[in-house]
């Protein structure tokens, strides 16, 4: 037991001796947590639209003013020249443009129908589709008003009876204000402690290899398991500390709901960290230099993050990719933390997550220990 404590003591000393390291380790994740949580929204507002009105009729002006009044659009400019609009689109100064052709209104009354044209920058397909939706709705609205005005009362049950419409009332359960920060903060926090835990363990051991001190440790009477435990415990404590600190900050600054049990949350975090450290240890047994360890760890980290459902939902991925995420520990961790914090799920709800995390942890740590050779 004493040996383990001595190693833990040595590790803590080494960590805190490097002031830069402590700073980078504590502040960078927390600052990022607070800033980046604000970035993650697909909710569109302020789509920029350019209007080419060649008609100058009362109807075309009505459509323009409807766009002006809409919450979704900002009019970036108008002109009678389509070239100008094309140029705006190309220069990224507008997201879409609406062209109302000459004699638009005249044709409408003469032919009973008339066309307008929407041209949309579709590089972001989802955004383009929604922009189209919003714009089409506004035009439809203008169309309806026109109809109501121009249909004569005799024939016109048309406006009230035949034009069908459906009212949709949207209810947002569990998060009425649709605050996306509450969804992102737990996820980003988990990513940050994972990255810190993973890199610190893998690099720490490889560093001892690189500068040769691992051999000195190997010739001491310390047993393999003591060495490994002694090395992992400090990072486990640090990770948990960081997790707690992040939660407190998130609660204070963003008032993130905390519905579930803190004990359950920290239990999950504790288990998860043993898994993360196990992976770090495993990587360190495979690599010889910090450079190698770093790139290998980076490779897995990026995959873990982007395939965890943190930024883009797992359900949207193709099936084979969804199957890959079954082996992604980060996915289980983020899911369970979100469930416990935001929905107040209890132990029975996240039981499976916990079991899987424990399974992974046992597997990774055993592999790492088996692969760790205490000899020169």
């Amino acid at each position, binding site marked *: 037991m004493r040996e383990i404590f001595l190693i833990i003591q040595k590790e803590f000393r080494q960590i805190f001796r490097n002031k830069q390291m402590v700073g980078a380790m504590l502040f960078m994740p927390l600052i990022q947590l607070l800033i980046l949580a604000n970035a993650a929204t697909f909710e569109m507002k302020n789509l920029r639209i350019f209007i080419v009105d060649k008609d100058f009729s009362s109807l075309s002006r009505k459509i323009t003013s409807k766009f002006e009044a809409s919450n979704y659009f900002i009019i970036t400019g108008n002109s009678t020249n389509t070239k100008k609009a094309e140029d705006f689109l190309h220069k990224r100064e507008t997201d879409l443009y609406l062209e109302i052709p000459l004699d638009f209104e005249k044709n409408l009354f003469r032919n009973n129908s008339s066309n307008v044209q929407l041209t949309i920058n579709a590089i972001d397909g989802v955004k383009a589709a929604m922009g189209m939706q919003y714009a089409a709705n506004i035009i439809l609205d203008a169309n309806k008003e026109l109809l109501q005005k121009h249909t004569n009362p005799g024939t016109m049950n048309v406006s009230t009876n035949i034009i*069908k419409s459906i009212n949709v009332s949207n209810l947002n*359960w569990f998060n009425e204000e649709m605050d996306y920060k509450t969804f992102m903060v737990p996820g980003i926090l988990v990513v940050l402690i994972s990255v810190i835990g993973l890199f610190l363990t893998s690099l720490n051991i490889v560093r001892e290899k690189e500068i040769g001190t691992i051999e000195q440790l190997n010739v001491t009477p310390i047993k393999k398991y003591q060495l490994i435990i002694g090395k992992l415990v400090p990072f486990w404590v640090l990770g948990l500390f960081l997790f707690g600190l992040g939660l407190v900050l998130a609660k204070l600054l963003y008032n993130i709901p905390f519905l579930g049990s803190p004990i359950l949350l920290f239990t999950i975090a504790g288990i998860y960290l043993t898994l993360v450290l196990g992976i770090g240890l495993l990587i360190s047994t495979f690599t010889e230099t910090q450079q190698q360890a770093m790139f290998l760890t980076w*490779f897995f980290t990026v995959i873990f993050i982007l395939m965890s459902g943190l930024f883009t939902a797992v359900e949207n991925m193709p099936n084979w990719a969804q199957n890959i995420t079954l082996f992604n520990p980060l996915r289980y961790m983020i899911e369970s933390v979100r469930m416990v914090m935001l929905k107040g799920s209890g132990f029975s709800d996240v039981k499976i997550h916990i079991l899987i995390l424990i399974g992974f942890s046992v597997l990774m740590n055993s592999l790492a220990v088996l692969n760790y050779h205490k000899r020169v």
Partner: protein
Amino acid sequence: MKRFFAFVYKEILHIKRDPRTLLILIGMPTVQLLLFGYAITNEIRDAKIAILDLSKDSETQKITNKMLSSGYFILYEYLDSYDDIERAFKKGKIKIALVFENNFAENLTKQGTANIQLISDATDPNTGNSLQNYTQSILNNYLLEENKLAAIPLRVNVDVKMRYNEELKGTFLFVPGLITMLLMLISAMMTSISLTREKEIGAMELLLVSPMKPIQVIIAKVVPYLVLGFIDGIIILAFGNLVFGVVVRGSLLLLFIEGIIFITSALTLGILISSIANSQQVALIISLMGLMLPTMLLSDFIYPIANMPEWLQVITNIIPARWFNVIIKDIMLKGSSIEYIYKETLILIGFTVFFIIVSVKKYKVRLQ
């Protein structure tokens, strides 16, 4: 000059001697592109929906069929009462619940308007939002068809042209973003680590007492990595084209030149980090923790910058990847020429100059 090349040669030997790292540097971005090109998408697919149909008539059936055949939704269950909705959400299985009011068809045909209630699980506001939008658009299409039959007078038709990405493919958005992210991270990490490594093992001092100027030493160290980064870029681009059909509509030469400018800015950022960090671990934490998430989130890669709060939009200006993202999308997808992207190019060059000046100031040439 000969001396300089000797230094470059030394660095190449270093890289060659460690084939594992080399393999990692070339192989990883490829694997990641292939994986993420498919997996990262903001298009919703098969969201589980529960339907409470209080009317059970032909119209609600039509709408239900339309919803379920759209590909966005997959039926989880039909509910019998309002109380079931809460239960279905608590089980955590459904993303959205749709309620048709009583006498839906009758209201629609007689009064011209009927009501639908849409309840989404807003713990994930992004998905909730998208699902609401998709539903709205399905309903609009339904109404459009219904109203068409009624031969409405004075109809305004909307023609839509989707520019630059006619089929609305997600890969068109994400492949350029992935190239940017991978180049940024790999380049910055490579230089910062390899330079601090020399510092840590003491070899930097040997290099600095040589007759070479410090700046030459650093440039010689960086050149091989520039080539490596460039090769990475080409590989990713080739795969993006072969596998995902993302074409380069603009000039390939311009794209390469811009690529080199961007890689250089990332490499010089790596130099800057190494001039501040006192150990490989610190260099790594800064270049990785400091760059990974901000590059993913603040560069217009996954989340559109235009949606962010204003103060955050200002912050994104200091992310070099954000500017290259504009450049690469413009060249690849719009076929833009330099006149449309010269501003972004100048900003990248500005970053590079700034990083170089600061690191030269910060570099301790002397032994302590």
